[in-house]
């Protein structure tokens, strides 16, 4: 940093020259500090990935890092993945998809309608009702489990997946309304007014104008909600009686086979595949979704 404490260089005409972005020795200290943080942040995942490809003998006898020493490639295999998929993780993977996809799509339309109404229609209690949604963003989900379990019994809802879709729709709704209202509310007034002048009803404006214009916000919410339901553990633990999702299966493996690291590492990596694919392929939307959704409790 000391380089920048000197007076900035000036050209003959007296203009201040921007210091070059990568000045030699300050940028080396920056790089070293960053490399340390990045190593600390990446090593856990790298170790998991390496270990998941080493057979049980290798994993049990030496650390995963020995793979980088001479002869370390011995005992590399994909058997762990086959074994853990057959031990229930494969079925759970499909179950997780079955939970997450409908739980992501179903709330969107109701939320978008509410968001449009809050943003562009005048009615009594508008602010109060929206404040209700903002307040509910941080309500702990634990409030819902006992009352909803009773409600499901009284209504005769016994299918694990139906229970999950309904619950996630409810839990995701405040956030969906919040994100979409902020976005739809920021659309230019002239666009909405002009539709009105052309004689479009609210219903038509919504379908022909608002939905197409809101695609970025819809995508941001969808990604957040999908990852949230995919990675959820607690809601599945409470409501799923006859089926398991990947997080629950992994947690059970940790409990029952806590020393079989060749299986646990492979199992953990399987649960991470879908979120990581979303992360690397849709990073822009992913960042937007997570930052917009971060207010959720």
């Amino acid at each position, binding site marked *: 940093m000391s380089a920048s404490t000197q007076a900035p260089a000036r050209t003959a005409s007296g203009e201040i020259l921007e210091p070059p*972005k990568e000045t030699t020795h300050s940028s080396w200290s920056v790089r070293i500090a960053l490399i340390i943080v990045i190593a600390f942040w990446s090593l*856990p995942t790298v170790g998991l990935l390496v270990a998941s490809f080493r057979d049980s003998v290798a994993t049990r006898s030496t650390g995963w890092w020995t793979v980088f020493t001479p002869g370390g490639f011995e005992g590399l295999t994909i058997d762990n993945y086959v074994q853990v998929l057959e031990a229930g993780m494969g079925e759970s993977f499909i179950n997780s998809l079955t939970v997450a996809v409908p739980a992501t799509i179903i709330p969107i339309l109701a939320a978008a*309608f509410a968001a449009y109404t809050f943003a562009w229609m005048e009615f009594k209690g508008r602010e109060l*009702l929206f404040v209700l949604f903002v307040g509910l963003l941080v309500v702990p989900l634990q409030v819902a489990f006992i009352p909803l379990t009773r409600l499901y019994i009284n209504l005769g809802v016994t299918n694990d997946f139906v229970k999950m879709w309904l619950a996630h729709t*409810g839990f995701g709704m405040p956030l969906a309304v919040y994100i979409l209202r902020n976005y739809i509310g920021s659309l230019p007034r002239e666009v909405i007014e002009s539709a009105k002048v052309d004689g479009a009803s609210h219903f038509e404006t919504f379908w022909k104008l608002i939905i197409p214009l809101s695609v970025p916000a819809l995508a941001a919410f969808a990604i957040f909600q999908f990852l949230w339901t995919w990675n959820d553990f607690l809601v599945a633990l409470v409501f799923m009686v006859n089926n398991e999702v990947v997080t629950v299966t992994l947690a059970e493996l940790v409990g029952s086979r806590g020393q079989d690291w060749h299986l*646990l590492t492979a199992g*953990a990596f399987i649960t991470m595949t879908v979120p990581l694919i979303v992360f690397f392929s849709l990073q822009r939307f992913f960042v937007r979704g997570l930052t917009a959704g971060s207010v959720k409790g």
Partner: protein
Amino acid sequence: MGNAVTGLVAVLLGVGGAVALFWILNFAAERMPKQWEERFKPYAFIGPALFVVGIFLLYPSIITVVDSFRTSIGTADEAWTLANYNWLFTDPALRDALINNFLWILFVPAGAVSIGLLVAVLADRLSPTWEKVSKSLIFMPMAISFVGASTIWLFIYAWRPPGTDQIGLISAIFQGLGSPLATPIVQNGTLRLNTFALMIVMVWLQAGFAMVLLSAAIKNVPEDTIEAARIDGATEIQIFWKVTIPQIASTIVVVTTTILILVLKIFDIPRVMTSGNFNTDVIANVYFDQLFTARNQGRASVVVVALIVLTLPFMYINIKRFRAQEAAR
């Protein structure tokens, strides 16, 4: 596979049903006399969303508060009581869990924000490509579930008796340095060391989130304020503390409270890594144990009431912030 087909049907029914519902609501509204139509329509359009949060969040909150004053719920002996509250304030195990929650609240948001800020500032000085790569690597854990992250770190903390080959990175480092660990880290409750070991997992998960928001805020700091300080002879470190930090303070507050709310309800990490044993229990896990192991719905409810009370200030802050945003629009 049968379930996947059901899922597909659910998507079609859910979306189709919603479209049909709004079409019917709109159709009904348009058949009304003009002044009624204008009045009814907004409520018809927010109705479904309101109904859903009413059933899944509002109604359960009320029931939970009522349940917290009941004992032997669902049996013939069900009755009103204050015993649950008495338990809440006097149970030593619960107090221990609250101390752990307090430590989580104290250290995790601060840790994640500090590291996020450090990376945001440092990465800003790299070339655009390297900035992107390093930020991606720090942010990546955000994609991983708490259960997955717990498994990853249990592997890092894996422990064998001293002298044998270690397969966990931390145990191997300590053994390599000549001071092997006598007990597994997650079981070592001395000075609540194990709670800190669990908290590292959360910092690892959340630092990327802090970094992304703080980095955006730092890039919004006007260049001329920094340039002016530089001309006045301020060092880079002075500029950081006296120019940059005050201008990103509101983002720091938002990030800190967001992580704080998350940490308040932390459940998955202690559940998977220790099941709350070895003095690492937290209130959300006490709730779970009361509900499913002790099968005491009254006590489980009173723990949730405590959680609600703890989140109320943040609810208030959120609403206040929202109102301020609205006023500024």
